[in-house]
C-alpha cells in the first residue's frame, strides 16, 4: 500500500509577490525585451558558429563510437535552440528540434543514417541565409524537414510551420 503524505504549503514567494510597489506586466516585458536585445548579436554569432560546426561534423568512421558523434550533433541542436529561441527565430528552433528528435529516436545499436545530420545542417545554413521576407522559402524548407521527421518518427507531435 502506498502512503500519501499531504502537506499544505505556502511559499514565501506567494507573499512577496503581493507586496506594495513592483511593476506591471507590460513594463516588465518591455524591460526584459530591451535587456535581451543587447544579447542578440552574441546569439547570432553562437547560432552561426554552431551551425558551421554541425555542417563540419563527419560521420563516425569504422571503430569510432557512433554515440559520441550523435551526442555532439544533439548538443549542437540544443545550443541552436538555446541561442535562437529568445530572439523569435522559431524557424531555426524548429529545424534544430527536428534534428534532436531524430537523434533521440535513434535506436541504440542500430545504424544511424548520417544524411539526417547533413540535411539538417544544410537546411539550417539555408534558413540562416534567408532574408526576413523569404517566408515561402522558409516554409518550404521546414515542411521538407518535417516530412523527413514524420517519416522517421510517425508518432512525433510537431507541426511543420
Amino acid at each position, binding site marked *: 500500500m502506498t502512503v500519501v503524505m499531504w502537506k499544505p504549503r505556502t511559499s514565501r514567494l506567494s507573499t512577496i509577490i503581493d507586496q506594495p510597489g513592483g511593476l506591471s506586466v507590460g513594463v516588465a516585458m518591455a524591460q526584459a525585451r530591451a*535587456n535581451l536585445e543587447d*544579447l542578440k548579436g552574441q546569439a547570432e554569432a553562437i547560432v552561426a558558429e554552431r551551425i558551421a560546426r554541425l555542417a563540419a561534423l563527419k560521420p563516425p568512421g569504422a571503430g569510432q563510437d557512433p554515440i559520441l558523434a550523435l551526442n555532439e550533433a544533439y548538443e549542437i541542436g540544443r545550443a541552436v535552440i*538555446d541561442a535562437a529561441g529568445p530572439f523569435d527565430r522559431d524557424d531555426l528552433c524548429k529545424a534544430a528540434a527536428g534534428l534532436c528528435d531524430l537523434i533521440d529516436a535513434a535506436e541504440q545499436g542500430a545504424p544511424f543514417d548520417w544524411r539526417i545530420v547533413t540535411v539538417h545542417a544544410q537546411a539550417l545554413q539555408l534558413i540562416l541565409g534567408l532574408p526576413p521576407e523569404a517566408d515561402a522559402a522558409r516554409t518550404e524548407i521546414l515542411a521538407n524537414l518535417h516530412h523527413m521527421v514524420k517519416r522517421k518518427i510517425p508518432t512525433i507531435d510537431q507541426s511543420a510551420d
Partner: protein
Amino acid sequence: MSDACEPLRESAVFNLTEAVVMVVDDSPFSMEVTIQALQGFGIRVKYAVKNAAQAMDVLKLYPIDMLLVDCEMDGHELVRWLRRSGLEPNAYVPVIMTASHVRRSRVADVRDCGANFLVTKPFSAAVVLERIIWVARDNRPFLEAGDYSGPDRRFKVSKPRDDNERRADMVRLADHLARQAAAALEEPKA
C-alpha cells in the same frame, strides 16, 4: 489559483524585488539570457551556478524563494534531491525547469522529479514571466507518495463533496479548510 494557461494582463502588477532567486544552467549564454529576462521583471538573481553540486552547496546554507533549473546537466536529479532533502524551507521552494529539448528517455524523470513547472524552449520572456507568476500563486499542496515528492501533479482544482466524501485527500482538505476557517474566526478575539 489561476489557470495554468491563462495569459497575463499587461496592467497586472507584481512585486518580486525581494525574492531570493537561484538559476542553475551549465550554458553561460542561456544563463545570461535568463538573468537578463529576470532583471527586466525586477528580479535580481542572487545565486547563478552552473552545476548541481554548486546548487546543493548554496541550498544547504541559504534559504531561497525560487529556483530556475535547466533540465540538462541532470537538473531533474537536483530537484529530486531537493524535494527529499528535508531542508526547510528550501525543500518546498517553487521550482521552474527549462529545457531546449527533452530526450524521450528523460520525460518521466522530469515529470516525476517534483518541479512545479517545465518550460520548454524556444525561450520566451512572456512565457517565463507567466510561469513565475503562476508558481508564485501555485497553492497546490505537497505530496509524498511512493517515489514522488513535490507539488500535487493534478492541475484541476478539486473540492470536497458536501456529503459522502470518501476520497482521503479531499477529507484531509476539508479538515484543513475547516481548521483554517475556525482559526480565522478565533483571530479577532486574541
